[in-house]
């Protein structure tokens, strides 16, 4: 009984689940067709540099996706992928951004107001065509790399976002400190200096209080916290594990005794806290008279003694540090070292990006400014040069370069998140996501290329290529799944892809003929609009018949 349904047929028994790898021929067709078509379309509408950089972007992006899917040497692979996120964003910005600037420089300024909109549409078409071509190349290169899957896209998005955090924070800190230094008043203390001043003040309060008066509140707080820290520190230590069988009970008893005493002391100190608030309410002189001078003097000496304060603070630091250290060690022992390394690699990547920017900021900034200035037309270039110089002078080249690096990594995060979202909502088929991405990108590049002035052969060729790429990729994926990647089905594949290509070429020829008939006065007396409407009706009928 015939059944009609979407997607691949039900796999029966041993035909299914041999391998998830597509066949070599389909991979080659997808890769070559996509790269050639996308490169040609981009080269037709934008500068050659954009095409080359787009290829580089595709390789780095696809390579990063492959790296995050690796199990062997995973921490290293993740770190490298994190560093590559800078280059992914940079190359995307150059490919698309430079094309945009070039288009703007070419098409603007206009001599007629009526030209603004169509030229704006053309600039947008050009930019979208290059963007789509770049995306197509990512799909094409990802096909042999087999790195594009739903889980790998999310992994890479997560990595990119986490990598973005470090340069973002560093850039924000640099910019903020510069701003505060400029507008912070005569002291001109940067943020870090103010933090240091604040830290110093706290230190004085804790360790060197002002002599001659009582400091009951702070002293009592320290007395309450110190035994608590001691108790927690003792409880965290692995005393029972380190003790021998003979001393185990004795050690446990003594530890419990010390902890018990510490808890009692803390309890008493906590109970006295409300009483110490009296020095907040009553001024020192009346309090001195209230408590009698000898007693007040004793309390002032006791609560303000630097040695005693240091002992209490030191106890808190040591005991608290011990508890924290033991907790960290226990956590590390329970946790797989590899997992810890993998979770830290994005931040390593982010730090590497900052380091790279710091090392190269003097080298890359000026050439970049010159490049962008040269790409902009007329007054835009002058304005950009002036503004950028002012920004660099104000913030410094290091802060500017780190900020730009952060923005580029952020762009990568956006791209990765977009890709992850597309795969998550199943806009790309799970059987062949990379070829589908390549096909969609090529199709959009060709379609928008038409609006950007790409010649007709490239438009039609791009549309045919996109459908051939999709068909070859999906067919190869199914063949690999049913037969295995190396079962010698190249001839069958060649027959199928050849038939698909023939249909596409026939369609392209027909489209050319229809286009010429529709735009030329070949049929005298036949109005164009009715002809077009008739063609649309015929096409709809054919479509409905085909889909039934």
């Amino acid at each position, binding site marked *: 009984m015939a059944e009609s349904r979407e997607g691949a047929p039900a796999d029966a028994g041993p035909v299914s689940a041999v391998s998830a790898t597509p066949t070599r021929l389909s991979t080659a067709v997808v890769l070559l067709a996509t790269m050639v078509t996308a490169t040609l379309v981009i080269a037709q509408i934008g500068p050659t540099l954009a095409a080359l950089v787009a290829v580089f972007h595709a390789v780095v992006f696809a390579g990063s996706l492959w790296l995050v899917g690796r199990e062997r040497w995973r921490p290293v692979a993740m770190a490298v992928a994190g560093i590559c996120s800078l280059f992914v964003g940079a190359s995307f910005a150059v490919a698309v951004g430079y094309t945009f600037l070039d288009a703007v420089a070419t098409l603007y300024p206009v001599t007629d107001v009526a030209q603004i909109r169509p030229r704006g549409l053309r600039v947008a078409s050009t930019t979208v065509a290059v963007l789509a071509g770049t995306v197509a190349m990512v799909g094409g290169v990802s096909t042999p790399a087999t790195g594009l899957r739903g889980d790998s896209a999310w992994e890479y998005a997560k990595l990119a976002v986490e990598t973005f955090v470090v340069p973002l924070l560093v850039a924000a800190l640099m910019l903020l400190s510069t701003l505060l230094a400029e507008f912070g008043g005569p002291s001109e203390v940067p943020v870090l200096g103010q933090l240091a001043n604040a830290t110093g003040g706290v230190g004085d309060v804790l360790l060197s209080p002002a002599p001659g008066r009582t400091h009951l509140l702070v002293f009592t707080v320290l007395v309450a916290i110190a035994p608590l820290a001691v108790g927690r520190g003792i409880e965290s230590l692995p005393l029972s594990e380190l003790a021998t069988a003979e001393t185990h009970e004795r050690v446990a008893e003594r530890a419990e005794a010390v902890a018990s005493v510490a808890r009692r002391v803390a309890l008493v100190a906590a109970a006295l806290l409300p009483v110490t608030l009296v020095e907040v309410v009553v001024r020192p002189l009346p309090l001195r008279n209230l408590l009698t001078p000898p007693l007040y003097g004793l309390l002032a000496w006791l609560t303000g003694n630097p040695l005693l304060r240091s002992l209490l603070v030191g106890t808190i630091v040591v005991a608290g540090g011990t508890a924290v250290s033991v907790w960290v060690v226990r956590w590390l022992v329970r946790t797989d070292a590899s997992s810890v390394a993998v979770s830290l690699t994005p931040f390593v990547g982010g730090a590497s990006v900052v380091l790279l920017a710091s090392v190269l900021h003097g080298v890359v900034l000026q050439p970049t400014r010159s490049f962008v200035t040269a790409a902009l037309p007329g007054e835009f270039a002058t304005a950009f040069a002036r503004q950028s110089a002012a920004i660099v002078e104000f913030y410094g080249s290091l802060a500017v370069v780190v900020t730009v690096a952060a923005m580029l990594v952020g762009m990568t995060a956006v791209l990765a998140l977009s890709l992850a979202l597309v795969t998550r909502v199943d806009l790309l088929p799970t059987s062949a996501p990379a070829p589908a991405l390549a096909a969609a990108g090529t199709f959009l590049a060709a379609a928008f290329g038409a609006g950007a002035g790409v010649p007709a052969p490239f438009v*039609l060729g791009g549309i045919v290529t996109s459908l051939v790429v999709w068909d070859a990729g999906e067919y190869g994926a199914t063949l690999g799944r049913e037969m295995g990647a190396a079962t010698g089905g190249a001839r*069958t594949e060649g027959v199928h892809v050849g038939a698909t290509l023939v249909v596409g070429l026939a369609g392209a020829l027909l489209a050319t003929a229809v286009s010429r008939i529709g735009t030329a006065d070949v049929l005298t007396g036949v109005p164009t609009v009715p002809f077009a409407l008739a063609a649309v009706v015929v096409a709809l009928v054919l479509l409905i018949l085909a889909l039934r």
Partner: protein
Amino acid sequence: MSDERVYRWRVGAVATAALVSFALLFASPLLLASAVIPLAYVVYGAISTVPPDATVRVERSFADPTPPPGEAVRVRLTIENVSERTLPDVRVVDGVPDDIAVTAGSPRACLSLRPGASTTVSYEVVTGRGTFTFDDPLVRLRSFSGGRVVTETVPVEGETALSSLDPVSAPPVGRRTTARAGTHPTDSGGEGLEFHSTREYRPGDAISRIDWRRFGKTGDLTTVSFREERAVRVVLVVDARPPGRVRPVAGEPTAATLAGYAAERFYENLRDANVTTDVAAFGVDGTDPAVPTGAGPVPWVSGDRRNARAVARSLFDTVQSATDDPGSVQSPNASTTVDDALDDDPLGQDEARRQPVATESGGDGSRPTTDTNASDSPAGEPDRAERTAPDGGDDALRFLLSQFPSTAHVLFVSPLQDDWPVQFVRRVRRRGYPVTVFSPGASGRDSIDTSGHESNGPTVGDAIDTSGHESNGPTVGDAIGASVTAHERDVRLSDLSTLGTTVVDWGRSEPLEVALAAALASLPGGNRG
């Protein structure tokens, strides 16, 4: 049979709609016209179909329908297009049984066939013992566009089953009978036919052996010794213990299975030559009433007993059942460490001591019996299985060796996957028995099976893994483990050679007949030509 339509070209409809939209956006006649292209694909997907009379004929043949277990057999599958239309996409998957391994080639094929054209696909499989029935192949036809899929099982012509060569009906090994009954001269002097040496006369020597010629010349009395004639007698010992129940890839017979098969082939050949052959087997549960035992718990079949051949065959059947069980590798006796190989505990006495051995009065107090064990063991059956350790313990081995005839030649068949066989041979050699060791390898193939078979048991790489986890198939780690295991086996082979034994190593890539013939030729009376 299933006939399905797959809407692969619905994407064409989406592309058509998109192009029409873009055409309106850009006011581009070119884009409007280009909507014909995806539309053409939609029509193409709709009209492309599988011919209703599309039929293929499939024929299968085996290079050898009754191969010895462990030997590769080439399977040929011929697919012919018997319809009158070209079939652009024919996918065939042969029905290989789950319990045999494909070791070369692939049982899957993707073809394009013109009318009347045929293609032959071949691959190799390795079987164990028994009969393996192939299922009919599955055939899937697709149209040019891939939008129509027809799947059906096609009845196959030709051969459908592979049966391993039965040792009972197998032809004799070698060109001539390699061992013959009767007597053969030995290296010791005494009564006989062939001159051996002379010595001084001692009172009591037979007068017929006095060298009278020399007495006449010199006046000295001397006695002539001849090479003693002894009856040919073979003791066939099979090592079917769990350490040998490993295989190089899933689906292939275990090394212990091959050892059992080779031993059975030896036995049949020797019996056919009227050579009295005793059989002993390690790794078989001696407490099973169906398993014959001798003086000790180790299964034993004396060549002199009535119905020896039938009893021996039943023992070999038991060996086959035990060695085909992959789960038995997890036996606590399956230690691959050297603990079992210590000279003072060559046969796992520690294992015997761990087992609650109860003695029965009236014996020597150190001989475990099945009845006593059953009655004294609160755990019942599991303890009995544990106590019947593969080697039975030192006492059991002593009992076994005491049953060996003094003139026997020991033919020991073992996979040599641990050190115990070397200790056993050393012990046998100390008693003066000549020994021939025949060893089927556990890893004779160079490549790792990547066909995705699930493991039916431990592989050679797992032999050194005592963690007890299940294998999900050979990995790089398994390949390293197999190399280590093979090297250790080579060391054992070398050790056996230094003990003065004849060693025949059977790698799985060489024909079994050749290896069997070499081993039989080393027996007394065996022809080497």
